[in-house]
């Protein structure tokens, strides 16, 4: 967020300077071009920083895991699946059948496990 703000300030400043020079009908000096280039670079760095991967929890154990890379998720399917497996969730949710849940059986199992 800070980098977006900094980039915007540089761009605004470069824009205003350019406006002033145009008023005076003087050729733009190279430092304005440089300022625009720096602003764009700061914006790009900010954009990358904002998509950094968050860690995640395993749905059963609450263990915390990280994605292998700080930015962007893996492109290779096998690498991506290794990380998804750590979450305890199944790929694409296949294997879960909540609409077919046997609710009475689940309740019985629960009652038996926690009789007291």
């Amino acid at each position: 967020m800070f980098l977006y703000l900094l980039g915007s300030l540089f761009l605004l400043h470069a824009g205003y300077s350019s406006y002033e020079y145009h008023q005076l009908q003087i050729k733009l000096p190279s430092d304005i071009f440089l300022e625009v280039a720096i602003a764009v670079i700061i914006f790009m760095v900010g954009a990358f920083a904002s998509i950094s991967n968050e860690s995640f929890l395993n749905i059963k154990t609450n263990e915390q895991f990280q994605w292998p890379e700080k930015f962007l998720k893996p492109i290779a399917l096998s690498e991506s699946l290794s990380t998804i497996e750590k979450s305890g969730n199944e790929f694409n949710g296949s294997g879960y059948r909540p609409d077919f849940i046997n609710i009475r059986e689940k309740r019985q199992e629960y009652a038996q496990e926690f009789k007291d």
Partner: protein
Amino acid sequence: MSVSLVKEKLLAVAHSGAYSLFTPSETRALAGQLDVFLRDHSSDKLTPLEYYDLLELQFYLTLISNEDKKAKSILDQLQDQFSSKDSQRLKLMKSIYLEAIGQSTEAIEALKGNKDEMRLARRMATFARKADNNEGYIKNLVSYLDLQPLDTMAWDELSFEYSKVGAYNKSVFCLEEIVLQDPLAYQCFYKIGLNNYYWGKQLMEGLWGSSSQGQPKKEKIVTLITVLSSARDNWLRCIEIFPKHTKSWVGIYLILNESFILKLNKWVHIREVEQFISHSRQLTIKAESTIKKLEGISDDNTFHELISI
């Protein structure tokens, strides 16, 4: 533990339906975590959509935990909020609630309405389920799949039911329907391999039984080899998609090391048997080294203990 991580986890469970396969202790832990989260952060960390998704999850967890009054109160809250909409989700929740408290007739009644509502049609099929006999349930699922042949969740359920009664060949067919639609569902390839493996075991037992009366027919042996090869190939496909799938590696290892498969050596003069054994032998060696690497095992004793589990 960060609040946003807990939120993401709870939403992941709510959206995937993973709670349906949780053990009672896992359900209790999740329900506790969800209660705390909704009590402390429902107003500041959740959008309305996320809040109602989590409320739906809370409803199912409390119902599984036999907290009927709390489940009813959540259901009422949701019905008050969305009563103007003809919601499929709400009808389903109401029906599951009624079924849970033993009012099956009312539960079926709650599902009636638009025939195009897939989730309600799925649920309707489950009312033929009986603890001791799943024939009627299988029949219902087959009829449902005639109408909705692209419903992978129903194919998975039917496959599970066929496995329970030992109809492994039919179970394999159902799972193959799923991979037709989702060719990267590596767990499905694993399950196909597993069902073929059990099917092979059944065929082998049949052959062994008949061998006492006479030499088993060559065609039966060839069928057995086809089934075992299919088990091996499906596990290999699973590994091709996800190379760290230990269970598939274990399957490949077992396919030539289990005692019943070692009996195949008796028929090694049949070309198909000889080919199967020679193709699989190298894989077994590879499987052993990979399992050791994946599980961080260095000695043979620990490895054999793991395999026996």
